């Protein structure tokens, strides 16, 4: 499924770019996420707790930063996540683009998400809403970090 979310932060595109590409700093801004290990410059391991309706899920994710093009302010992450209680998993390609918007920055995130297993069955209906909520909390946290 394709999810598109966007938000504004009160900081310049360059400031926002610097934060978004500083992985140890940015990850804690994502609700439920923590960085476990930096394997290489662009390869990370992270854990993410998500509530999908009544289901509390924990994902162990391998994250690879495939594109980080400062010229076009575009980042692409490839994520492969496994639910830690064998309830399925997900793969995602997450592309984010920064654009100047007045004195701030508009961040647009396009996610191509493929879920499998029980996660796919139960998550199907609620994922877009949950993703929207997570992104808006992420945006609030980013704004606070940039303030």
């Amino acid at each position: 499924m394709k999810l598109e979310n966007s938000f504004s932060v009160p900081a310049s595109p360059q400031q926002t770019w610097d934060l978004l590409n500083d992985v140890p700093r940015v990850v804690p801004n994502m609700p439920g996420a923590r960085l476990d290990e930096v394997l290489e410059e662009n390869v990370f391991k992270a854990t993410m707790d998500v509530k999908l309706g009544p289901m509390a899920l924990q994902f162990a994710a391998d994250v690879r930063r495939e594109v980080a093009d400062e010229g076009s302010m575009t980042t692409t992450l490839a994520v492969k996540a496994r639910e830690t209680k064998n309830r399925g998993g997900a793969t995602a390609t997450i592309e984010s683009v920064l654009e100047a918007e007045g004195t701030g920055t508009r961040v647009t995130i396009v996610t191509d998400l493929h879920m499998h297993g029980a996660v796919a069955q139960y998550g199907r209906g609620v994922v877009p809403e949950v993703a929207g909520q997570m992104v808006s909390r992420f945006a609030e946290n980013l704004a606070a970090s940039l303030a």
Partner: protein
Amino acid sequence: MSGVAPAQRFVGQSVRRVEDRRILTGRGRYIDDMQLPKMLHAVFVRSSVAHGRIVSVDVDAARSMPGVVAVLTALELEGQAYPLSIQPDVPNVERPVFTALASDKVRYVGDPIAVVVAEGRYAAEDARDAIVVDYDPLEAVASIEHAENPERPNLFDDIPSNLLYSEHREFGDVEAAFEGARVVKLTMRPQRVAHVPMECRGGIADYNSGSGDLIYYATTQSPHGLKLGLSGVLAQPAEQVRVITPDVGGAFGQKAGLQREDVALCVASRMLGRPVKWVEDRVENMTSASHARSEILEISAAVDDDGTIRGLDVTMRLDVGAYPVLPFPPSFLGPIVRTMMTGPYHIPALRWANTVYATNKASYGTYRGPWAIETLAREALVDRIARELGLDPLDVRRRNVYTVEEQPTEMVTGPTIEGIRASEALERAAELAGERDFRAAQAKAREEGRLIGLGYSSYIEPAPGPPNLFPSMESGLPPERAYARLEIDGHLTVTTAQAPHGQGHETTLAQVAATEMGIPLEHVRVIHGDTQLTPFSVIGTGGSRAATMASGAALLATRSVKEKVLEIAGHIMEISPSDLEIVDATVRPKGDPAGGMPLANVAGAAYFAAPPGEDAGLRSSSVMHEPPGGWSGGTHACQVEIDPQTGVVEITRYLVVEDCGELINPAIVEGQIRGGIAQGVGIALLENALYDEEANFLAGTFMDYLVPTVMEVPRIEIEHLEGDALHEVNYRGVGEGGTIAAPPAVLNAVADALGGVPITTLPMTPERVLELIDG
């Protein structure tokens, strides 16, 4: 049995089921009730992706967890079990070869990858969660259209496409049938459905390393078939494999054959030298056990203006999921549907094409009335023909249905039609449904904005079918065997090849045997479900064989014992055996109620001092071959009212007129009919084993997969026709007719309520009905 006094004639009476005291008081014994000494518990790690290569399976953490005894993957099974495949002698069929636990690839959500064996179930489940499987996902084959697309990957690397089988056949002169005829077309694409037995799958493997004997306690319909499969796959000599089937809580076709989990459990027990138990949970059953239906059937019918059907041109595309259910080849369904396609109608020409595909879904398993698609599509077609020609659907049926006068005759596909009461059932159903009054009421309701409809479906059910049915399908069915043994106290033990799981065979076979023997019903015990004791049958219970075949075998075996008894009694009493009878457990001269001796005394004499010419022990083994006739059938009529605001379909009346020959136990017969219709109503209105476009399974719980409850299943009115007997054993099966006939009856009623809209898929959920209302 005509000479039996009425008081002793248990056949025909709704006696209480023998098994119910045990089951209803909680003294039934199912797999999950069984505890063996030193027993271990198994759970399976299953694929969460539909299609992918297995990169790694990390079991190290799990192996060191408390209580864990072993974690087995395909690697550990190598050398312990042969790879699995279908029976080798089926021509023109691709034969996927696979392993009990997935090795290089996973091919559906639920594919077993590893089995965790631990001291307890909790420990096993915890360890399962610690196993990390890394997949390299492949594009999923989630539909027949995907399977036909050469761009999509193949499920099996050694099979050149996802097409497993194709067949083209012609019966009669199809070209002539279509020449100058009107053509009515219909496509029917029902959903996938799950069998939903009340008890999920499971088993306990108990290998004795001292003796080398393997006992497998299995929840199965086919103990001998399972034994045969295990013996071959495990290279375990047949005399050292014993399958014991305790009480089984329903199967509906899902528990036939050899399951991959059976193999894994037996290997685990053989490696560990301890009993290993697995009990499937509901999500696992919904996801990983078999599903059925979801054929795509396209029909063109050549018809005359008066509704005479001159011929059919039919294409069936079938999605059998990822792995064949062993030992059935992927080609097995086509010949049954093809042979049954013309149903109770004398249609003189049939062109048939069938293709079968592998997809990334759970296996296709036979489900109650496996050929049901032909009944669904054909009965919807009959109504469509009527609609397009401006005729009454009943008149189209009348014009084509087999009459009593034209029998015996043959279906264009081969089987003999003899002894069926299809036209009588149709007329009686129309009469009971109040066809004429209903049409007036329907017109009035329409004026008030209410939507009511009446639909019919007519069917025949091979139960077990005539002797030439299976040859027509290029296969054969083995005869049915039974043993009977008179005990030393004059009671009777009947041993059947059936593996009952709700059918009441402990009762019905006892009714037949007690009536034949002339003893009280309570003096008969029916033994089943242990390959060490029971006669061989590769099927066990399935295919509606019990009523004719198992009853017939029990009857013949009992009769043979009775002859021995009369021989011995004649010797003792110095009377010709032909002048003796057994009445109420007393052997007596015919017509001399006072002059007899208790059956127990005759039995005792035979056991302790074998009279000349008789061996000690009064036992016999008998075989029943298929008698002529063999058809059940009839007509269902369904009335519905549809709420135009919500789209909810309510079944307001449901009636059945059917013929299954003489009823052994009317309550059991009607229970079978009602249960079948309940499942048919579920198929028509509720159930959907849904996969998404990436072959994720979306219906793993009863929140998502709706089964009918007492709220949806209507009161069912049943009328029995009893046709003339073609054979002494005039009992026929009735298990499948309800499930095959109900979906088209409901579909035709809904279509009728909506003014004849074409309905081409199921279930008819409120959302879908609203779409139909909106056109």
